[in-house]
């Protein structure tokens, strides 16, 4: 393996089934040291199974796992420099907060002074000072989550795994915690791998993310590139809204139900589908005569969303997201411009 200095985690051809049901289908994954990586997908896509295999809580049926260049495929969790924040936090209900955080250090027989110092630092870092003597059931959801983080981070793991850590929090708290988590990761420089089904969370937090479906990773990349250049319909629709247009190649243009369109990158297929984000479609009252990628349309329905206005237009229907200050309503005539670089040719075949 070359260039493994940068590589924090390598998963090669991991396969896992439960009772005949395939949960992971030969998954490959590379996570760089120090990055915030997210496994994103709907429930049942295998993301938690993959996380548990990385943690050592589950053995893959086949395939290999490398941590920092060292193979750990058959090592138990206790022998991996990886710690986990569980979905339910799994705090020890009978131990107070100090004991909870000190658990991993005591298990490895650290010196009492060292334990005290490191636990104190961790609690400080997560603003939990003063709660040392409390029991888990006396804490709020947000506090529990920070204890779970402190308990994992105090061990200075190579990789921190987070299994849907926000799912038990209120919506308004979630945004705040996401920002804190991002800052924490930047400060520590530890590799974080997050599992979530929430695409906003994945966008906000990750350096890179992998979209999973049916036990497979179907696209990996930075949030910006995955969002703007989805390779298939599932990714396009799972990460935000998308217009999907069946299309056929004709010379240097692509013919759709809306008319001929030009793309900045020509598709590799003869017949397939295009995707375009609703907010990338530009809206004008009049179209410049003779220009390409302009289409006349009529508003069928307008949905006010506060920060934006969603329009459903005929022909199509095409969905356009625009400034909410606009005053368009059903029946209004408009011109749409499809920027060639906003049109993405999807790789997958129609289902």
């Amino acid at each position: 393996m070359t260039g493994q200095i940068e590589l924090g985690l390598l998963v090669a051809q991991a396969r896992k089934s439960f009772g005949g049901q395939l949960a992971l289908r030969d998954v490959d994954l590379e996570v760089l040291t120090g990055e915030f990586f997210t496994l994103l997908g709907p429930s049942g896509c295998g993301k938690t199974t993959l996380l548990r295999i990385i943690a050592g809580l589950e053995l893959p049926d086949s395939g290999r796992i490398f941590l920092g260049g060292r193979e750990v495929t058959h090592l138990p969790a206790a022998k991996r420099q990886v710690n986990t924040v569980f979905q339910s936090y799994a705090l020890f209900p009978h131990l107070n907060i100090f004991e909870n955080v000190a658990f991993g250090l005591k298990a490895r027989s650290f010196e009492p002074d060292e334990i005290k110092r490191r636990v104190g630092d961790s609690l400080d870092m997560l603003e939990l000072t003063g709660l040392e003597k409390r029991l888990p059931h006396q804490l709020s959801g947000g506090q529990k989550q920070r204890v779970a983080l402190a308990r994992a981070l105090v061990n200075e793991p190579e990789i921190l795994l987070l299994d849907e850590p926000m799912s038990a929090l209120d919506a308004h708290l979630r945004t705040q915690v996401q920002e804190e988590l991002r800052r924490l990761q930047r400060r520590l420089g530890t590799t974080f791998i997050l599992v979530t089904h929430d695409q906003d969370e994945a966008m906000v937090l990750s350096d890179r993310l992998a979209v999973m479906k049916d036990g497979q990773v179907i696209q990996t990349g930075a949030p910006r590139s995955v969002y703007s250049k989805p390779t298939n319909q599932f990714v396009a629709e799972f990460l935000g809204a998308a217009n999907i247009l069946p299309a056929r190649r004709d010379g240097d243009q692509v013919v759709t139900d809306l008319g001929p369109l030009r793309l900045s990158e020509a598709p590799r297929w003869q017949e397939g589908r295009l995707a375009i984000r609703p907010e990338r479609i530009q809206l004008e009252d009049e179209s410049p005569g003779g220009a390409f990628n302009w289409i006349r349309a009529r508003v069928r329905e307008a949905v006010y969303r506060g920060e934006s206005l969603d329009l459903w237009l005929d022909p199509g229907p095409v969905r356009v997201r625009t400034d909410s200050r606009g005053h368009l309503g059903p029946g209004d005539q408009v011109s749409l411009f499809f920027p060639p670089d906003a049109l993405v040719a999807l790789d997958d075949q129609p289902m």
Partner: protein
Amino acid sequence: MTESTGRKARKMISWRGDVRDARELRLAGLALAGPPLVWLATLLALPCAALALVALAARGPYGQIVWSFSAANFKRLLGYGLFGWSPDFLLILLRSLEVALVTTVVCVLLAYPLTFHIACRPRKARVWWLTLIIVPFWTNVVVRTYAWLLLLSPQLPPAKLAAWAGFVPPGGALYPSELAVYLGMVSTFLPFMALPLYASVERLDWDLLEAARDLYAGRWTVFRQAILPQTLPGLSVGLVMTFVPAMAMFVVSDILGGAKQMLVGNLIQLQFGQARDWPFGAMLSMALMIMTLASLALCRRRPKNL
């Protein structure tokens, strides 16, 4: 640690967060569970099975077991003796069954209101109620039963009241009587019904009860459709814990029912004690065992038809 991938011969599994050799794990489990299992097998399972053999043996002249197998004890149980047929033993078995059944039913009838009442108390009060139910058990069953004798004696108000109403002759006691036996039995077995039932009642989904109350008019329907299915696990444990010992109990009827109320428990004790007829005692034990298991099987079957 790449050598770990090479060991294909051992079947490694992930188990509660650890990676273990499946066989090693089972050996460790056997080290823990083995001694108590061997204990229960040698002192309980095997002797129970041996009883079946003894039941077919015969009694020697000095009370020893003579290993000549025959169905003689079974015939005797059915009532064929030297002096023709008499159903004495069968009647005793039936009477034991009747006492156990009535006791169990009364316990169920009392345990439901009791556990519902407890479940509706505040948290702290619930602990107190549960403790209160167990406390009387720290006096022995013989003493508690004898205490009923005191309570039902002629000098005390219950007996006087009964005499005034004409149920017993003036100056008479309320024992020996059926009432006394059932008072003793129910007060002995009620906790065995109430405690397991409470475990289920506490977890009852009260919203479902509300819904049921909205949907149906009758209390019986609410009970059958909402309460019974949800409390069935606790109820069935309670039924076993009550019915099984009630079937074999004889101290209570001995003390409160007078000498004429022979139950199968007395009979077995008699065979293993004064009569020194172990084979017939074993046959009676088998009969009791089969009746108990058959009743339990019947009551297991019922929930499925609900």
